[in-house]
């Protein structure tokens, strides 16, 4: 059993990366020290009963020194409230939760769409620590337009990986989807693909990776109440039949295990 913590974390930095996208840095030593790329946390966005449940967020960065980051988009009332939390405020965080990415030695291709970029930064850093040659690694960052992609490019470049960017509207990087950018790259068959983004994008990546023979890990989402295997609410059907639970069996799965509705 993994050890989890419920911490009162202090917001030490709040960055508005674009109109809807916010990055929070917490002083949250226990969770940060135990975290692993691809894992997530459950954050209590308020103190009252409405909204009642915690909200799940990927761990965007975690430093052994105690700093933990999440990077999120305002899509509803919970994220709105979290976006309004000021520096110095205390927030209850539960984590680290779930099973993260399986880190493999072979060359890596990280593919993130929209807020799916969030877990990849922590992953990129840990991959770069594995004494591998990151010069062979690629990161594809895609989004609807410039503001969803540009603010994160520098963070990835520090690891010496090649950064490719795409936007749906062509306002930054290549015009089009990350799947198209991925198709046009010539990657070795040994390349391990790590992917997070909207369902259709991950479904597409699954098709492309199977065709090319690349392994493909995806981080998926689901509604969650507990985040720790207690409510059985976060089920997803698998190709083999039956269900997995995103919060304990995932959120990272082999893409080919999952059922993709396309």
């Amino acid at each position, binding site marked *: 059993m993994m050890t989890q913590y419920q911490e009162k974390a202090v917001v030490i930095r709040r960055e508005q990366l674009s109109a809807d996208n916010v990055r929070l840095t917490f002083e949250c030593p226990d969770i940060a020290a135990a975290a692993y790329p691809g894992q997530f946390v459950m954050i209590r966005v308020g103190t009252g009963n409405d909204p009642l*449940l915690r909200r799940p967020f990927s761990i965007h960065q975690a430093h052994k020194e105690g700093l933990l980051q999440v990077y999120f988009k305002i899509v509803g009332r919970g994220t709105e409230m979290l976006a309004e939390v000021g520096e110095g405020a205390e927030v209850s965080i539960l984590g680290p939760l779930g099973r993260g990415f399986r880190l493999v030695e072979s060359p890596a291709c990280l593919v993130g769409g929209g807020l799916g970029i969030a877990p990849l930064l922590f992953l990129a850093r840990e991959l770069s620590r594995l004494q591998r040659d990151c010069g062979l690694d690629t990161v594809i960052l895609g989004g609807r337009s410039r503001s969803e992609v540009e603010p994160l490019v520098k963070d990835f470049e520090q690891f010496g990986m090649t950064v490719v960017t795409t936007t749906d509207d062509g306002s930054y990087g290549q015009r089009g989807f990350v799947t198209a950018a991925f198709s046009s790259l010539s990657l070795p068959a040994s390349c391990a693909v790590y992917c997070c983004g909207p369902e259709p994008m991950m479904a597409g990546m699954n098709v492309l990776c199977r065709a090319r023979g690349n392994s493909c890990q995806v981080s998926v989402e689901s509604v969650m109440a507990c985040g720790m295997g207690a409510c059985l609410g976060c089920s997803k059907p698998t190709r083999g039949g039956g269900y997995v639970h995103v919060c304990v069996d995932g959120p990272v799965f082999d893409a080919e295990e999952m059922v993709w509705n396309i």
Partner: protein
Amino acid sequence: MEYLNGGVRIPDLRVDIGPLSLANPVMTASGTFGYAREFESLLNLRRLGAIIVKGISLHPRSGNPPPRIIETACGMLNAIGLQNVGVDRFIVEKIPYLGTLGVPIIVNILGDSLDEYRHITEKLSGCGTVAAIEINISCPNVKKGGVAFGADPAMAAAVTRTVREAAAVPVIVKLSPNVTDVTVIAKAVEDGGATAVSLINTLIGMAIDLKRRRPALANVCGGLSGPAIKPVALRMVYQVAQAVSIPIIGIGGIATAEDALEFMLAGATAVQIGTANFVNPRASEEVVDGIGNYVLQEKLPSVREVIGALETG
């Protein structure tokens, strides 16, 4: 009675559910605490009055398709579909760990026929670790066209009697709130031999995703839980307390010691913490602490003084 432990006053929190003695009145509600192990790094499981595990059926059930849960105002709906590992795997895989905790383990059971209830009970009665059985009677009776056992006094009494006869341990019957008069069902299961009743299970509810013009849950309807239902739960506990003489375990929206004490004032001997475990995994232990502080502050000889002490005159 009050103990002194190294100079620290220890409140007397012991309560009895029939022959079952609990160190304190705080349990975890079925389906909201997994099989307890999920919480082991977050709280001290040994401090709980009892642990009630996820509802167990005769055969494993894979549950409903997603989405299974949706948040509502101060509450949530769930349609898990009674997913569980089945009684055999439960005994092999879960009981050994639970047995190490030194806390009474109560197993919540469900079935779709009297036979199924009897079989599960017989299997569970074999393992020493099970301190009591809690019967979920909110399940549909397949033989009676799917009417819930808990909606009909005769059927509720029949399940109770069936389990009671097969069980070597106390039997708690968990009442459904989706009935016209909960006291009628409570009296029926008391007559059927229930050691205690627990209430309430979830209220049946529904949510709609306007954008998709579809029910938010794949199962269309689900069970409503959380703070939103507390007033209904408290009322039913109070009503049942006037109607039966067996102990009552209060459930529904309990998140704090104050909530728990209100249920005890209304007549509950013990309480269960459900949805609150998701919001605050330490909730149940914090309720134990809070009740202890209350007993000390109010200088009560025992928490038992609180049971049914509501003044209505």
